[in-house]
């Protein structure tokens, strides 16, 4: 019990952010027309590529060869997620733009 309370105290800002972000995510998405579901899923997919920041931090403090290799891999995969995600979304949306 004590450790739970301690945990909440230690991470109160993060918990705040999490709860508010959950509502924000729901609010932002719930009025989306069905036609944009696919691009939206793809765009959201690119945004969770933010995990790359964690990969950069790990890589930046890696000291053994093993962790260097894993870190390198993590950065490559994270970049794939980010770049691929945004480019694919843009390609999908490009098609919507053309119609007159």
């Amino acid at each position, binding site marked *: 019990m004590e*450790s739970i309370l301690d*945990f909440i105290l230690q991470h109160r800002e*993060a918990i705040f*952010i999490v709860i508010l*972000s*959950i*509502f*924000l*995510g*729901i609010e*932002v*998405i719930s*009025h*989306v*027309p*069905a*036609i*944009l*579901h*696919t*691009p*939206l*899923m793809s765009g*959201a*997919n690119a945004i*969770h*590529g*933010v*995990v*790359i*920041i*964690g*990969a*950069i*931090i*790990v*890589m*930046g*403090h890696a000291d053994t060869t093993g962790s*260097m290799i894993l870190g*390198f*891999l993590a950065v*490559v*995969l994270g*970049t*794939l*997620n*980010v770049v*691929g*995600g*945004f480019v*694919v979304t*843009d*390609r*999908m*949306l490009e*098609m*919507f733009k*053309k*119609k007159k």
Partner: protein
Amino acid sequence: MNDISQFPYGVSILEITYIVASVLFVLGLRMLSHPLTARRGNILAAFGMGFAILATILFHEKDGERIGNIPWIIGAIVIGTIIGWVIAKKVKMTAMPQLVSFFNGMGGAAAALISMMEFPHVSPDLIARSGMSNGHVLAILLGLMIGTVSWAGSMIAYGKLDGWIGDLRVKAMKYVNLAILAVMTGFIAFIMTRDVKASSELTPYIYIMFGVAVLYGVLFVMPIGGADMPVVISLLNSFTGVAAAMGGFLYNNQAMLTGGILVGSAGTILTVLMCRAMNRSLLNVIVGVFGGGGQAVVGGAGTVREITLSDAAVLLSYSKKVVIVPGYGLAVAQAQHICHELDKLLDEKGVEVKYAIHPVAGRMPGHMNVLLAEADVPYEQLIESDEINPDLPNTDVLVVIGANDVVNPAAEDDPSSPIYGMPIVKARDAKNIIVMKRGMGKGYAAIENMLFFNEKTRMLFGDAKTTLQNLVNEIKNL
């Protein structure tokens, strides 16, 4: 003192950049939900990401130590950018769903790798103070578990959509999956209650847990097929979001936290919206075994009647109202352009042509909209199925192009059917029905479709693109 004279405000700039990035993510998602601003929204979010990455490389400090190995990091980013860019640009629009799944898997894998590398480095002070049961360890373990499941699941989903992995449908599967889920939860509890001096003593368990999570990811997606595939991808998408947010907890990193949670909650809502479109509960999708279980249609479902091209051409040309129901077959055959040509041709002849878009036609919600938009079909012609259904009895000809489950009357008639209750395009209400289809194969959900045996239905067999091309030529020659 040296650090201070170097650049004193680095960390402040980093945090400000993270705030800016978070705002850009939210704005980007918001703009993505309106057709007119969607593209700018995507680019905005991409800029946010770029700032966050750049600032992390330049200013991030951990225990007063700057990011090292910068050439390697940049090298990795360059490699990832080139590969990601090329794949994203080269792939066909029809393969979009599996591509999203693939990129999603990459993010999950990155999250899992981070957790694996961070686990042995949990601060000994923290362990001395509160043992292994602390938020830090929990975030690492959850990040590993969720990230790995998302990666393995996404790869299976990718393979299934790409057609090189089949469905594995075993009734006992859900019990197996529930058991594995219990094992994973038990594992977390086990690791967190160990009494050790350093977390690195427990590293072998991390690899076992990774293995179990891979197994779960694979078995979780294996039995799911049919119309449920998009739901799974969306769900895995939100999983990866949560895994990224775990990294945010770990590093006390607000950009990762907001970005990850935002996607986690938005992805979950999107998943629920999709489930609702198919009248299924999320739980049902996750533990249920979809498709294949449907009652076999009692023998002698009736006869299938074919129509010749010229008859079809005449029928269409002399109609007042035509409704086209596109499906995955249209996407596979890349027939969207020729389909638009057909509707323009009919339009010149004074026929009113509309498209009935089922929310889950194709392999992803909105898949058909993307494809038809690519072919320059105007928005106004695309009508959602609920809206067009009341109009169908006045429709002279309804043309089904490569769609199956979304027009299957079993969803209304047969309570034993796995798709019972799913909203459909009520194709059989139309006066005449032409079904373009490659053969008498079943739809993705593997259920017999009584529409094909309906008295008003005429079949036009062949590849959608070729058939449409021939039909267009035929109409031109009338």
